[in-house]
C-alpha cells in the first residue's frame, strides 16, 4: 500500500481519476485511523459531550484550587476548557500522569486530574485523538518494528520536523517498522498566473464563476466559501452543484430539544409553547400536503387555537381544547396533548433542574421523534441528540440541580448541527476541493478566498513550554504553526498553472477581508465583473461567452383606482358585522379582498400580545367583576387587583415571565385605576350594569337597487346598563392610545359603532326611547359620553338614529356598486381627492381629512377613514406596492 500523507490532506481525493487500489491520500486523522486498524487499537467513538461530562466528574471528585472560581460559576465550560488544554498538552507528546516536580499551575492541574483518571475506552476518561496517537506510538515502540503494517511507502508532503507534537516520532517509528518514507518533493518554484475578480455581491461573483466553468470545465474548483449561491447559478446553467455548504443548527429539527426543555421549565413561556406546538419537522407527503409536525395535527390545531384566544395555560379555552381532543379518539394526538399538558402544568422549577427529572421528561420526546422520523436521517440526528443528552444526564449526579445555563451548554455540546440538504456535490467535469493544500494541478477557480481566521492555536507560555519539553513534549511556536498551514496551502496553489480567484465582496452585508494567501501569489490582475464584458462578449482568463442584455422591462403600472368588473351580485355579503361594515365603508377594495374574495394572509400561530392582549385582559377583568359582584357599589382597588392577578396566567401569562415585572406593574397600575374609574363613574351616574359581551344577531334589511336583501347583523356589545330613569345605555370599551379620536367621532355623530349598538338595542326593546351611548377609554380611564356625570366635556348627545341611517345609506350605496361591478380603492381615492400623497405631513393630512369628512357630512353621507396603509392588502391596491 502506498499512502500520500500531508498535514492538510484529510478529506482529499484518494486518487486523480480512473481507479486505484492500494493507494490513498491521508491526513493526520486518516493515518491514525488506518494505523489503529492495523494495530488492533480501534474503539467505539465517544461523543465529546460525554468526555466533558467525564472530566467534570473528575474535577468534582478532585477539587482544584486554580480553576475553582471559574468552576463554581461555570462547571461545564471550565471542564471543557481544561479538557481542551489537556488534549493539547497530550498532543505535544507530554505525559501528564507521569510528569514530575513542580509545574506551572495550568499543567499542575492537568497532571493532578490525570493521575486521578483512568484514561481509556472503559476508564473514567475516554481517550482523545491525541491519546490515540500516543497509544499507536507506544505500541510501535513496544513491538520495535516487529509488526507488519502492510504499508510499503509513505510519501510525505512536509518535512517530518515541520509537523507538530508526536508526529515526527510516529514517522520515525513507521520507518523503523519498514515503511519507506519518501519526500517531500521540492516545492514548485514560481507563482501561477493570478487573476482576481472582485465582485460586489455573491450573485455577480457567482455569475463570473459559473460562466468561467460553463466556458471550459477543465479546472479544479477550490471552494473556500459557501457555494450555495454559486450552486444555484450553476444549476441555472444546467451545470452540476459543488455543494460546499456548511452544517448549521438553524434548522427546524435541531430546534426540537431546546424548545422542548424550555417549555418544560418554569415559568412556562406561552410563545415558546406555541412554537413547540407549531414546529414542523418533516415535509408533507406531497407538494400540496401540510408538513408533519412534532405534535400530531389535531392536538396542534386545538391547543394553538386555545392559545390564540387565551395566551396562557389552564384557562377555559385550554381545557375545552383538551376535552375536544379526547373526544376525537385519536390516541396519538391525545397522548401528545396529555404529555404537553402535564409538561406545562407541572414544569421543572428553573432553580431546581435535576438531571434525573429532565431525563425522564425526554422519554416522550425520544419516542415521538422515533415515531415521526420514519427513518429520515435528519430527524434521526435529533433523536441521537436526545439520546446523547440522556446519556450525559445519566452520568451527572441525579440529585444535584443544574443551572439553566449549564443545561443549555450540555445541550449545545450534544451535537445538533446538521448537514445542509444543499451540501450535495454533484458529478462534475471539474475537480472539487475545499482546501488549497489539496490542489494538484491545472487551472484553479478559487471561490471566495477570504480571511476567516481559524481558531488560534493553543499557546503555551515560556514556563509551560519548558515543562512540557522536559516531560517529552514538543511545542511549536505559533509562527511555525501558522506557516505549517500557509506552506501547505501555497504548495498546493503553486502546483496550479493559473489561479482565478473570485471574491464575492460582501456576504450577508459584511465584507470579509481577502485571504492572506492571495498576497503570497503576487499582485496578479484585478478585475471587476463589469470589466469582463465588452461588446456582447464576456471573457475571463482566456475563456469567453456570448452575452446579451435583455430588453428593459416596462415599468409596472400603477393599479387602477377602481376595479371595473362584470356585475357581481354573488359577492354581496350573507352576514354583516360592524367590522365588515367599517371595512366596506373605508375601502371596498380591501373589503372585497378580505371578505368576498378570500384573499387573506395565512393564519399564523401568533398569540395576542401587546395592546391586543392587554385589551382582552382588561375587558375580561370588567366582565368578571360584573359577573361575580352584585350590588351597586364600585369594586375596590384590591378586588380589581385580585381579579386581574387571577386572570393574568390564563389571558396574559407572558406578563409573569422574568423581565416583564415592569410591564406587569404598568398594566396593573393603569388597569386598576381605569377599571375603578369605570365602575365609580357608572355608579355615580346611577347606572346599573345589565350585561357584558352581550351577543346579538338581528335581521337587517338592505334596500339594494337589485331588490331588498335581508342579512343577519351580528356582534356583541361590551357593556349594557340601565339608568335610574330606566333608559338604556351601551358603552364600548377601548384600549387605545389616542385620546381624541373617539371624542371626535362622538362629537361629529360619526361613531357608527355606537350607532349600530343603539340600533340593536332598539330592535331588542322596541318602543323604548333610543339608548344612550358612549365609549370608555381603558388606557386613560375616561368616558366619552353626553352624560355630564360620566364625561365633563359637556358633549352634545349623539344622534344615533341619524348616524345609523347615514351609515345604512352609505353601505347600501357601496353594495350597489359592488353588485354592479365597481370596486373602489378607499384611501387611495381619498388621497386623490384631497391631493395628498404618502409624504404629506401628519398635520396637513389631518386638516385635509377633516375637510373631506365635513364635506361628506354636508352631503348627508359619511366618510369612514381607515386605511390599511401598512396592512396586508395595501400591496395589491398599489399603496405600498412594489413599484421601484
Amino acid at each position, binding site marked *: 500500500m502506498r499512502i500520500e500523507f500531508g498535514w492538510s490532506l484529510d478529506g482529499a481525493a*484518494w486518487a486523480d481519476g480512473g*481507479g486505484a*487500489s492500494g493507494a490513498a491520500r491521508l491526513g493526520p486523522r486518516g493515518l491514525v485511523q488506518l494505523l489503529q486498524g*492495523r*494495530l*488492533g487499537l*480501534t474503539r*467505539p467513538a465517544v461523543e465529546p459531550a460525554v468526555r466533558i461530562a467525564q472530566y467534570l466528574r473528575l474535577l468534582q471528585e478532585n477539587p482544584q484550587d*486554580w480553576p475553582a472560581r*471559574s468552576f463554581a460559576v*461555570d462547571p461545564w465550560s471550565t471542564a471543557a*476548557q481544561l479538557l481542551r488544554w489537556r488534549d493539547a498538552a497530550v498532543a505535544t507528546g507530554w505525559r501528564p500522569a507521569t510528569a514530575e516536580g513542580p509545574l506551572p499551575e495550568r499543567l499542575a492541574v492537568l497532571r493532578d486530574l490525570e493521575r486521578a483518571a483512568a484514561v481509556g475506552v*472503559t476508564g473514567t476518561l475516554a481517550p482523545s485523538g491525541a491519546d490515540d496517537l500516543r497509544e499507536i506510538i507506544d505500541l510501535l515502540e513496544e*513491538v520495535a518494528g516487529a509488526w*507488519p503494517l*502492510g504499508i510499503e511507502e509513505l510519501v510525505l508532503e512536509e518535512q517530518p520536523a515541520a509537523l507538530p507534537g508526536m508526529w515526527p516520532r510516529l514517522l520515525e517509528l513507521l520507518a523503523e517498522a519498514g515503511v519507506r518514507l519518501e519526500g517531500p518533493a521540492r516545492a514548485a518554484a514560481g507563482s501561477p498566473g493570478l487573476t482576481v475578480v472582485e465582485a460586489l*455581491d455573491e*450573485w*455577480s461573483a457567482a455569475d463570473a464563476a459559473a460562466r468561467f466553468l460553463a466556458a471550459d470545465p477543465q479546472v479544479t474548483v477550490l471552494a473556500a466559501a459557501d457555494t450555495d*449561491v454559486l450552486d*444555484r447559478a450553476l444549476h*441555472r446553467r*444546467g451545470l452540476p452543484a459543488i455543494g460546499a*455548504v456548511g452544517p448549521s443548527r*438553524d*434548522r*427546524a429539527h435541531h430546534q426540537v430539544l431546546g424548545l422542548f426543555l424550555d417549555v418544560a421549565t418554569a415559568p412556562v413561556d406561552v410563545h*415558546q409553547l406555541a*412554537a413547540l406546538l407549531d414546529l*414542523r419537522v*418533516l*415535509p408533507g407527503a406531497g407538494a400540496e400536503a401540510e408538513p408533519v409536525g412534532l405534535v400530531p395535527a389535531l392536538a396542534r390545531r386545538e391547543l394553538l387555537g386555545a392559545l390564540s384566544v387565551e395566551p396562557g395555560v389552564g384557562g377555559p379555552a385550554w381545557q375545552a381544547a383538551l376535552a375536544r381532543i379526547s373526544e376525537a379518539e385519536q390516541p396519538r394526538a391525545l397522548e401528545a396533548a396529555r404529555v404537553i399538558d402535564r409538561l406545562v402544568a407541572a414544569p421543572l422549577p428553573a432553580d431546581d433542574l435535576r438531571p434525573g427529572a429532565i431525563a425522564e421528561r425526554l422519554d416522550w420526546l425520544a419516542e415521538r421523534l422515533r415515531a415521526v422520523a420514519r427513518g429520515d436521517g435528519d430527524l434521526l440526528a435529533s433523536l441521537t441528540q436526545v439520546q446523547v443528552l440522556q446519556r450525559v444526564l445519566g452520568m451527572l449526579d441525579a440529585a444535584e440541580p443544574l443551572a439553566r*445555563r449549564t443545561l443549555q451548554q450540555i445541550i449545545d455540546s450534544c451535537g445538533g448541527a446538521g448537514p445542509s440538504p444543499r451540501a*450535495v*456535490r454533484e458529478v462534475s467535469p471539474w475537480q472539487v476541493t475545499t482546501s488549497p493544500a489539496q490542489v494538484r494541478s491545472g487551472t484553479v477557480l478559487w471561490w471566495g478566498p477570504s480571511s476567516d481566521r481559524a481558531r488560534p492555536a493553543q*499557546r503555551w507560555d515560556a514556563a509551560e513550554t519548558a515543562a512540557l519539553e522536559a516531560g517529552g513534549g514538543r511545542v511549536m*511556536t505559533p*509562527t511555525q504553526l*501558522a506557516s505549517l498551514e500557509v506552506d501547505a496551502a*501555497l504548495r498546493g496553489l503553486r502546483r496550479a498553472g493559473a489561479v482565478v480567484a473570485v471574491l464575492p465582496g460582501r456576504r450577508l452585508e*459584511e465584507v*470579509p*477581508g481577502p485571504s*492572506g494567501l492571495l498576497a*503570497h501569489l503576487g499582485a496578479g490582475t484585478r478585475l471587476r*465583473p463589469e470589466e469582463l464584458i465588452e461588446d456582447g462578449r464576456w471573457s475571463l482568463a482566456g475563456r469567453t461567452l*456570448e452575452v446579451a*442584455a*435583455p430588453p*428593459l422591462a416596462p415599468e409596472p403600472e400603477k393599479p387602477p383606482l377602481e376595479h371595473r368588473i*362584470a356585475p357581481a351580485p354573488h*359577492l354581496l355579503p350573507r352576514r354583516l358585522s360592524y367590522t365588515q361594515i367599517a371595512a366596506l365603508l373605508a375601502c371596498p377594495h380591501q373589503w372585497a379582498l378580505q371578505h368576498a374574495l*378570500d384573499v387573506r*394572509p395565512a393564519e399564523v400561530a401568533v398569540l395576542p400580545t401587546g395592546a391586543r392582549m392587554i385589551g382582552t385582559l382588561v375587558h375580561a377583568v370588567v366582565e368578571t367583576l360584573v359577573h361575580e359582584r352584585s350590588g351597586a357599589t364600585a369594586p375596590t382597588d384590591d378586588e380589581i387587583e385580585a381579579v386581574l392577578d387571577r386572570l393574568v396566567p390564563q389571558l396574559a401569562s407572558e406578563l409573569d415571565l422574568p*423581565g416583564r*415585572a415592569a410591564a406587569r406593574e404598568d398594566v396593573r397600575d393603569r388597569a386598576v385605576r381605569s377599571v375603578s374609574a369605570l365602575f365609580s363613574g357608572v355608579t355615580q351616574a346611577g347606572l346599573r350594569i345589565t350585561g357584558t359581551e352581550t351577543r346579538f344577531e338581528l335581521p337587517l334589511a338592505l334596500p339594494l337597487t337589485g331588490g331588498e336583501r335581508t342579512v343577519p347583523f351580528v356582534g356583541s356589545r361590551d357593556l349594557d346598563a340601565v339608568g335610574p330613569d330606566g333608559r338604556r345605555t351601551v358603552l364600548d370599551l377601548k384600549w387605545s392610545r389616542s385620546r381624541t379620536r373617539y371624542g371626535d367621532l362622538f362629537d361629529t355623530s360619526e361613531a357608527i359603532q355606537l350607532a349600530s349598538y343603539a340600533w340593536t338595542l332598539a330592535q331588542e326593546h322596541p318602543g323604548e326611547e333610543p339608548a344612550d351611548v358612549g365609549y370608555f377609554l381603558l388606557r386613560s380611564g375616561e368616558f366619552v359620553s353626553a352624560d355630564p356625570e360620566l364625561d365633563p366635556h359637556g358633549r352634545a348627545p349623539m344622534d344615533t338614529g341619524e348616524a345609523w341611517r347615514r351609515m345604512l345609506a352609505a353601505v347600501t350605496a357601496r353594495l350597489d356598486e359592488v353588485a354592479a361591478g365597481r370596486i373602489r380603492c378607499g384611501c387611495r381615492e381619498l388621497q386623490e381627492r384631497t391631493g395628498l400623497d404618502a409624504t404629506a405631513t401628519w398635520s396637513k393630512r389631518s386638516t385635509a381629512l377633516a375637510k373631506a369628512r365635513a364635506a361628506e357630512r354636508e352631503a348627508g353621507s359619511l366618510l369612514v377613514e381607515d386605511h390599511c396603509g401598512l396592512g396586508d392588502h395595501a400591496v*395589491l391596491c398599489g399603496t*405600498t406596492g*412594489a*413599484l421601484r
Partner: protein
Amino acid sequence: MTQTFTLINASAGSGKTHTLTHQIAERIAQGLDPSQLIATTFTTKAAAELRDRVRRTLLERGQVDAARGVDSALISTVNSVSGELLREFALDAGISPDVQVLDEDRQRAAFRAAIDETAAQAGARAAGLLARTEHDGEEEPEVPWAASPSWRAHVRDLAGRARTNLIGAAALREAAERSFEEYREAALPEAEAADRRPAWRSGIAEAVRGLRALELPERTARTVDKHLLTLERLLRDVAEPERAPWSAWAKIAAVAEAKAVDPGAKGYAFSKDVDLALAGVATTIAEELPANPALHEDLRSLIALVMGTAADSLEAYQRYKDELGLIDFIDQEVRTLELVRTSERAREVIRTRFRLLAVDEFQDTSPVQLALFLELSQLIDAKIWVGDPKQAIYGFRDADPSLMLGIIERIEQGTAGLGDAEVLDLRHSWRSQEPVLDLVGAVFPQVFPELPRERVVTTAAPEAVAAREAAGRKAGRLEAWVPEVPKRLTYPQHATAVADGVLALLREEGTGPADIAVLVRSNRRAQEVIDALTARGVPASGEGTAILASREGRLVRAALAVTLDLSDTLALTELVDLLPDHAAHGTWFADLAAQEDRMARRELFAQWWRDPVLAGLRALREECISLSPVEMITALVDALDLPERIRAWPAPEKRLRTLDALRAVAAQYADRARADSAPITLTGLRIELDAVDRGPDLTGTPDTVWVGTIHAAKGLEWSQVVVMLDHDPTERPQTSGAFVLPAPQLDVAAPLAGRAPRYWPAVLPRLAALQDALAASAHAQRRTARERQESGRLQYVAFTRAADVTVLSGDGSAPVLDALVPAAREDSPPLLTWSAGGAGIAVRGGGLLPAVVRTPAGVLEEGAPRFDARRSPLAASDLVGDRPDPQRLRARFQASGVGAEDVAGTVGTPRTIGRRLVPGGGPQWERVGEAVHAYLALPPLGEAQREAAAARLVERWAVSRAVEPSVLREAGQAWAGFLAAEFPGAEELTEQPISWWNEDDQVMEGWIDTLLRLPDGQVVLVDHKTYPGEHPVEHVREKYLGQMATYARALTAAGLAPSRILIHLPLRGEVVEVELA
C-alpha cells in the same frame, strides 16, 4: 531590551496606515516575530485591512518568511483583543471560559431584564412622584416624539456611563445629594416654607369662573370655550395633588411670559381673553413655582430615585450576567484591565509573548481603553500609537481626544514614563490637492487654536504632486454653491439644489458618479439628497429603497409566505400581481370576482399556484422544511429566478444588494433567536421579515454618488466632495440627563481617576426661568463646549475627504463654523462667505480663496434635464433561451449504499468453517461484531501479538461480558484454517484502500476488508460481515450483493479483477461465496 514609544500624529490623508505598516515591517526586519505583535484597530474591517497591508508590505520588502507567519499576530479590535485575552486567562480571572458577548441590542435587553424587578418595585413605590415629574414615560415608546421622559431610560443611561467610567454603585449613591445641591444652586431659589399650590388652584378656578361669565362675540366665545375645557381638565388634574404634574402649573405660568403680561412677547399662551383673565395668577405661579418646597422635594427624590436605582441596577446587572455567563463590551475591557492589573500569570505571559503594541485610531480611545493600553505598555517593550485628535468623533461612545493630547504633552515634557518616547508628526497630505488643503489651512487653525499650526495643516506631498502631474490629472479646485430659491432656503430645496449642482459636476468630462460624495449631517438629510438625486436620474448610494418596498423584496417575502403556507392567498395573489409572466397577471381581480363561490375561488387559487412560473417554488415547498433561514432565502431567490429577472429592471446592482440584505436579515434573525434561546424556524423568519423596515446599504455600488453622514465618511475619500452645510446649527441645551464630571485635572496615567457621576432630571422643560438658569450653569456650559468641539472635529473630517474638489453648499456662509469660531465683534462677517457671481470664498480676515461659484436650482422646473445613467453592464446575461435541466448525480457514493436490484448474481450455500460464536444475536452483538471485524482486519501476526490484540479489542469494544478474547482468536483461527485449506500459499492483504470512478463519473472511496493474492496471481475479494441472524443467504443477497459487485468492478478497473468473491460471516462461523454474472 529598552522600552520605546512612538506616537504618530497623523492628520487626515497623511498616509497613516502606510507609515504604521512600514514601521511594523521594519521592526520585524529587526527581529520581531509576527506572533509577538498586538495591534488594535477601531473596526473589524480595519483589522482585516491592516493585516493584509502588513502582509503585503512584508512581501514587497522580501520578508517572505515573516509574511507567512502574519496570521499568528494578534490584529483585532480592542474588544476582540480583550475578548481573546479574557478567554485565555478566564480561569485566572475566575470567570467562565465560555462567556457570551452581548452586542449592543442584547446588552440593552439584558440590562432591562436584570433590573426589571428592582425597577418595577422602586417605580411602583414612587408612582406618584414619577407622575408629578412626568418621568413615567415608556422606556422605548412606540411614538418617540410625543413621549414623556422615562426614568428607567435615565437609569440605564446613567448606569452605562458609570460603567464606562468605572464608577461603582457606592459612588452613584453618594453623588445623588451633590447632584441635587448643584441643581438647586444653579437654578432654584431658596425654598419657601409653605406649599402654595392650593392658592394657585383657587386663583385659576376664579379666573375660569370669570371667563365663563364673560359676554363675548360668537367667534371668540368658541375659542374661549375650547380653552375653558382645557383649563377645567387642568383643574381636575391638579385637584389630585398626588399625581398632578408640575407642568400643569408651568402651563399657566407661561401666560406670564406672553403678551398679556409682557407686551414685548410674541403672542399669547392661550388666547387674548384667557391670558388676560389668568394674568394675575400666572404671575404669582411663575414667581412662586421655583421656590415651591414640594417641587424641591420632588426634584431631590427623583434624583435620588434614579441614582439609587442605577446603583442597585449595577449590582443586579452584574449578578444577572454572572449567572448566565454573559459579558458586554464594557465588561470586556474592564475585566481585561483588572486581569492585566492583578493576574501574575497573565502579566508574565503577556510580557514574554508580546514585544510590540500598535494602536490605531488612538484618538477614539475611551478612558478604560487608555488605561488598558497603558497597563499593557508597562509589559510590552515597543509601542507605536497612531491617531489624529482632530478626527475624534465618537464622543457619544466615550472617546476622549483629550487623552491623546495629554499623552502627546507628556511625551514632549519627557514625563510619559513609557521608555524612549517620540512624537512623529506626519506633515504631508498624500490625498488632497493644494486648493483643498488651502481651505483646511484657512479654517482649522482657528477651530483648533490650542493645537500648533503644523499639527493642523498639511502640505501636498511632493511625490504625490509629481505622480498626479505624470498621470495628467486635472488641477484641484474649490467650489461654493448658493442654492437659488424664492424665499428662505429649506432643507428639501437645498437637497434639490445639491442634486442640480451634482448634475453640473457630472457634465464635466471624465467625472462619473462614483467620483462624487455628498456629506450631510444626519440620516434624514441624506435621505432627502438621495431622493433629490434619484429624481434627476443620478444614481445614489447610501441606504437603498426599503427591502419590502422593492419588487425583489416583495417577491421574496410573498414567495416565502406562500411556500410555507398555501392558505396564504394574499401572498399568492401578490405573486401573481408582481410576476408579469404569470398567466393571471393583470386579470386576477376580475378572474377571482367572477367565481361564483368559495369552492370555485379555491380551485382558482390552486390553478394560480400550478402556473409554470411558480414551478421553482413548488419544488422548494417539498424540501424547504430542513433549510436554514439563510438557505431558504437563497433558495427563494433562485426559485423566482431573481438573479436573471432583475437584469431587465433598472439598477440591478442595487437589487442584488437587497437580496444580500434579505439573507443578512435571515442570518441576524437566526443569531438573535439563538442568543435568546428562541426557536429558529422558517415561520419565525417570515414574521421577522415582515417587521423589516430598512433598506440595503448601497455603499460601493458602481456608478453611484455616495451620500451619507460625516460619521459614515470617516476613513473614506473621493475625488469630489460636496459638504452640505447646516443652515442654522442649533446647540441643544445640555440641562438634563446623566453625565460624568471630568477630573479637575486630567491625569493620563490614571485616566479614570477623579470622575464623578451626576444626574439632572428633565422636569419643567418649558419653564423658561428654570431652564435658562440651568443652561447658564457650569455643568451645562462645559457639556455644551464639549459638543461644540466635537462638531469642530466633525467639520474637519468633512473638509478633508476630497482629493481634488471640495464643494461648500449653503446659503453663502457656513454657520456651523461660525458657532465654532465666533467673531471678535458683533458686526464682523461670518468666517467664510461667498455669493452668486463671486470669484471665491472669502475668509474673515484672510483674503479670498479662489472658487467656482454656482447657483444650483433649489426648485425644479418642469422638464429639468436628467442625468443619463448608463445601463449597468451587469444586465448582460449568458442565459438565453431554454434552460437545460440535465440529470444530476451525487459525486460520491458508497459501495455499501449500492442496492442489489440491478445486480445479477447468485449466493452460494454457506460453508461452515467454525463454531457459531454468538447464538441468535443478543444485545451486544453489534459491538461484538465490530470487535471481531477489527480482529480479522489485523495483518498477519505472531501468536503473542494476536493474543494481546484480541484481549485489547475485547476490552476496547467493551464486550468482555459477552465474549472472551479467545472467541476472537477462535474466529481468526477458523478463518486462517479455511484460508490455509482453500487457498494455500495465498498472501492476505487486509484493509486495502480502493477508489473508483463509475461510468457516471461518481467516485467511490473505501476500504476492502481483505484481498487474497493467490500464488498464481489470481485475486480473491473477501468481506467480513457480522450478521448473526438465521437467513444468511437472503441477507447477503439483499444487503451485500451491490457492494460486492461495486468492489469487483472497482478492482477490475484497477487491474485486479477478482476471480472469486467470498463473504465471511464470523459470528455464524460460515463462508458464503458470491458469483456475479
